[in-house]
């Protein structure tokens, strides 16, 4: 094992430019992946924030009695999905409309806006199906005239999230495949540069695993270095964006570590494919 480490180190020092090039290429592949991951993380975060604001508004029929409204409110508040229910009177609705419209506030006169119940949902209970089911139950109350919850907006939001997840996955797999090919090629160059050593090793009776070990170590090290460099680049990018454009959230430490390990796996996979192919030929 000691010899394998030494040989891997010699390989690094003997072709520093090639080694630097392969580390940089892996770093840039993973950096591109990291940037996309960062976008995905932040889209997800933004979606979570928007989801927090999803609320159901049930408009109350004009002829509904106070008792029946209060009964409905109590029943709604008792539902497990519901965090709280607030009553918005006609007067409050008008005031809110005036506040929202600012300089055009004087177009409203008289209480022509209906009273309503604002139903806030519990966090974590906001997926589309649950919201729809709840809306149907709210609609069933006789005091309720109509229910709005921005369904088009909610639908679009979920579609954006699904699209982001699928695109992220496809790009992630594509970048990982490219990285495997790149590291495979650089290790292949290293294998060819050392084909004489390999042939001598085989002549004197080295096992395939023994021959493979330095290359696997080299690929692993390159992958880890590339992954770490990509992590630094991604962090710098997120800092720059946070400072000059909008506040972004960086990866959780465990996720960042997973990214570096991803680099290591790519390095191992690329080198193992490359050496395996060479060994089968000699």
């Amino acid at each position, binding site marked *: 094992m000691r*010899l394998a480490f030494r040989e891997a180190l010699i390989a690094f020092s*003997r072709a520093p430019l090639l080694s630097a090039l392969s580390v940089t290429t892996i770093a840039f592949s993973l950096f591109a992946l990291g940037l996309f991951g960062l976008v995905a993380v932040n889209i997800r975060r933004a979606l979570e924030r928007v989801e927090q604001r999803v609320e159901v508004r049930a408009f109350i029929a004009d002829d509904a009695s106070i008792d029946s409204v209060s009964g409905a409110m109590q029943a709604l508040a008792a539902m497990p999905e519901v965090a709280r229910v607030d009553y918005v009177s006609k007067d409050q609705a008008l005031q809110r409309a005036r506040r929202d419209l600012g300089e055009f506030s004087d177009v409203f006169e008289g209480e022509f806006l209906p009273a309503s119940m604002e139903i806030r949902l519990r966090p974590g209970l906001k997926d589309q199906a649950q919201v729809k089911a709840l809306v149907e139950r709210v609609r069933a109350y006789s005091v309720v005239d109509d229910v709005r919850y921005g369904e088009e907006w909610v639908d679009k939001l979920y579609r954006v999230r699904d699209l982001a997840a699928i695109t992220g996955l496809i790009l992630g797999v594509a970048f990982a495949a490219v990285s495997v090919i790149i590291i495979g090629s650089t290790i292949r160059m290293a294998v060819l540069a050392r084909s*004489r*050593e390999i*042939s*001598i*090793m*085989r*002549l*004197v*009776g*080295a*096992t*395939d695993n*023994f021959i493979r070990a330095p290359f696997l170590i080299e690929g692993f090290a390159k992958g880890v270095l590339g992954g770490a460099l990509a992590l630094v680049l991604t962090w710098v990018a997120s800092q720059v964006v946070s400072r000059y454009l909008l506040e972004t959230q960086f990866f959780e430490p465990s996720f960042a570590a997973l990214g570096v390990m991803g680099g290591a796996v790519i390095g191992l996979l690329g080198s193992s494919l490359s050496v395996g192919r060479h060994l089968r030929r000699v």
Partner: protein
Amino acid sequence: MIRFTNVTKEYPRTGTALANVTLHVAKGEFVFFTGPSGAGKSTLLKLVYMEERPTHGEVRVGGTSSKSLARSDVAKLRRKLGIVFQDFRLLDDRDVYANIAFALEVIGAPRGAIPSKVGRLLERVGLASKAAARPRELSGGEQQRVAIARALVNDPFVLVADEPTGNLDDRAMRGIFQLLREINAAGTAVLMATHNLDLIRRSDYRTVEINRGQVVYDSKEMVAAVGGL
């Protein structure tokens, strides 16, 4: 010890390299393989160190048979053999000592034992004073001595030498041949492919001539035949 039984080796592109060769090499024997270029000498030697497998027939080297050979068995077999080539195959970026030590490290020799073993091997091939030299700083004969020292790290029971003197001048050639004789005298069998008829004539070792993939002459059989008359 080494036995070829009806061995045929065919290559997809170049056709038959060896045709129905049957041959036995006894323990500690010195055998010359001679014949024109492309006759099949190198193929025969490759079959001995299992770089190639026969298309038909069987090659047995020590207890290893080509018929039941796994990839990992090749490494085990090579640890009992020494192999030398015309082009030396040394690592130019390391000195003589490191070239031999590398081979010892590869086969997992204990680290503490390596310096003394390398020293003994260099002394055996007459290069004790050149341990720190790079291969390029040595003459062809000296480079081949380093290659032979490396081939001896496994204390082989057979040394396979494919045209070991092909790149050497007359004086160096004689030196290498003398070294191979000494190695043989110490009990290691030597299989040597060569074009050099002068070398063959100067010694009374067994000579096997190969032409177009077939054994066309074997001095051992001739001796046996003459003895039987």
